[in-house]
């Protein structure tokens, strides 16, 4: 094992010590859907609420100053965590909102009398194309379908090979491409996509790049500036932080040129009944009273991850993933959907059990206290690509143990026995 005292670390997570279903210890292997929070995060949020809570960027009294400081300090720490500058970090309610923000901002540049510069730079029309991949989470697919519907642009996509990799040979990127949006790590296959290669191809045709980093930022060191993407999104609740907060990263120069998305208080410069002008980013994209305590909680999560070290996190999860792949491969009738070797691969392990539907496998696992996800994991086209409706998915976080991997594998065998296919 890595130089990580997992037992000690688990003591920080109150939920992990609970039992489920007739007193079975919980084996939580669903962190890819949402992670659990250490008490450090819960405490940080509570301390803020008991001592400094106020509306940020609006008040002139001491509490408002303190709340604003806490909020902006959180922004700075979260930005640093992913190699960004504070003014490149916009807080959203989740990653999904971040992607929609970009999609609607481009859409807004395409309709009505916005300023000519934004229109020239961002407007989409029937000649334009957006490129995604067949392995995207719905969050990074449906907003682009909808943007295409609104602007007349066309959606194209990279296919996925049977090994669970992007088919880079059949490349839909062309001079028509305005934006390339793809996940850093697939939430189903575990595949880590070749960001720099895709950025290079997008750059060659002048297209923007949006990276869905929901499944990478919580699990490995990520430097967005170094990756060279234009936009990236990730969610607090998947990285030991609160729900209700996500991050949109955008290169400063782009955010500065983009029209707003949500409008209202705190994002304005000047408001008249006849029309309004807008504040510089990141405020321009944060309308209304924001998720203040959640930003504080997310910054505490980042501090917590930093105190472990993201390289250590990644190494620990690599060991868990390797164990899961190896031990599941030993079970006859189990088929991994996604890469089976550890090259460019993170810790989402999805699989099928011959003769037992994923829902039924999940039910047997749940009965034994093992929490996994079953279904299409918000990646329905990817499942269709593999000819299945549903898979079983185990996902890991820094608090999981090899013992829990064993519990998973034992549970899968038990499901086979129960359904008489073992």
């Amino acid at each position, binding site marked *: 094992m890595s130089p990580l005292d997992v037992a000690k670390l688990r003591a920080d997570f109150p939920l992990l010590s609970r039992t489920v*279903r*007739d007193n079975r210890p919980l084996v939580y292997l669903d962190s890819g859907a949402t992670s659990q929070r250490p008490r450090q995060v819960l405490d940080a949020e509570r301390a803020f609420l008991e001592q400094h809570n106020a509306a940020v960027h609006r008040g002139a009294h001491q509490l408002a100053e303190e709340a604003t400081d806490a909020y902006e300090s959180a922004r700075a720490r979260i930005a640093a965590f992913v190699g960004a500058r504070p003014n490149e970090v916009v807080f959203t309610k989740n990653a999904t909102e971040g992607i929609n923000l970009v999609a609607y901002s481009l859409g807004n540049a395409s309709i009505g009398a916005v300023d000519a510069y934004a229109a020239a730079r961002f407007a989409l029309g029937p000649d334009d194309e957006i490129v995604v991949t067949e392995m995207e989470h719905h969050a990074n697919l449906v907003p682009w379908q909808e943007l295409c519907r609104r602007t007349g642009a066309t959606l194209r996509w990279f296919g996925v090979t049977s090994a669970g990799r992007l088919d880079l040979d059949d490349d839909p990127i062309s001079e028509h491409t305005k934006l390339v949006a793809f996940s850093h790590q697939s939430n189903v296959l575990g595949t880590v996509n070749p960001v720099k290669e895709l950025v290079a191809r997008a750059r060659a045709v002048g297209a923007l790049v949006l990276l869905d980093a929901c499944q990478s930022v919580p699990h490995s060191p990520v430097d967005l500036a170094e990756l060279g993407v234009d936009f990236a999104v990730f969610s607090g609740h998947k990285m030991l932080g609160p729900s209700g907060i996500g991050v949109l990263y955008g290169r400063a120069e782009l955010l500065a040129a983009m029209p707003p998305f949500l409008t209202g208080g705190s994002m304005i410069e000047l408001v008249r009944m006849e029309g309004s002008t807008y504040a510089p980013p990141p405020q321009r994209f944060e309308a209304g009273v924001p998720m203040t305590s959640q930003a504080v909680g997310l910054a505490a999560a980042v501090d917590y991850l930093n105190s472990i070290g993201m390289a250590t996190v990644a190494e620990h999860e690599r060991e868990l993933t390797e164990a899961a792949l190896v031990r599941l491969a030993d079970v006859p009738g189990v088929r991994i959907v996604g890469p089976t070797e550890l090259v460019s691969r993170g810790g989402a392990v999805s699989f099928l059990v011959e003769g037992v*539907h*994923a*829902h*039924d496998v999940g*039910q*047997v696992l749940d*009965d034994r206290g093992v929490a996994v996800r*079953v*279904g*299409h994991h918000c990646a*329905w086209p990817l*499942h269709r690509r593999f000819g299945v*409706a*549903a898979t079983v998915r185990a996902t890991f976080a820094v608090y999981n143990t090899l013992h829990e991997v064993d519990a998973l594998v034992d549970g899968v065998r038990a499901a086979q026995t*129960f*359904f008489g296919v073992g």
Partner: protein
Amino acid sequence: MRLSQMYQEIILDHYRNPHGAGLREPFDAESFQINPTCGDEVTLRVALKRDSTGEPVVADISYYALGCSISQAATSMLTDLVVGCTVADSMHIVGAFKHMVQGRGAVEPDEDVLGDAVAFAGVAKYPARVKCALLGWMAYQDAVARAVEAPAGPSQNGAGR
């Protein structure tokens, strides 16, 4: 073991040997239903006839289903229960089945109405599986509504507007 409460032997039997499976003609209406969380789907056709008093009666149910043991067995059991019933009686059975599986385990099922389908009482304790149990039954309900309104023609659940 709690599992055996849910997966009663009769459920596993229907799952392994679904009754009335396959898509047949003629039919009066068809419904396609999906479970958006897991991607399971069913295409179900209903053929009606009139009995001697002129009341509509279920002549046949045929279906093609992709899904877990619960959804497959529930659809299979549906056909056993409602084929041959009047449409009105079948709706009563559907109502009782919904009431039971959505009842969170607090509803005492009526074996006179539900017959073997009382076996699904255990599902009621697993809210995430309730949709599985109902998939075929909702397709039936939808198909009958269509058959009564305007006979023939396929359809899909209409939430997508």
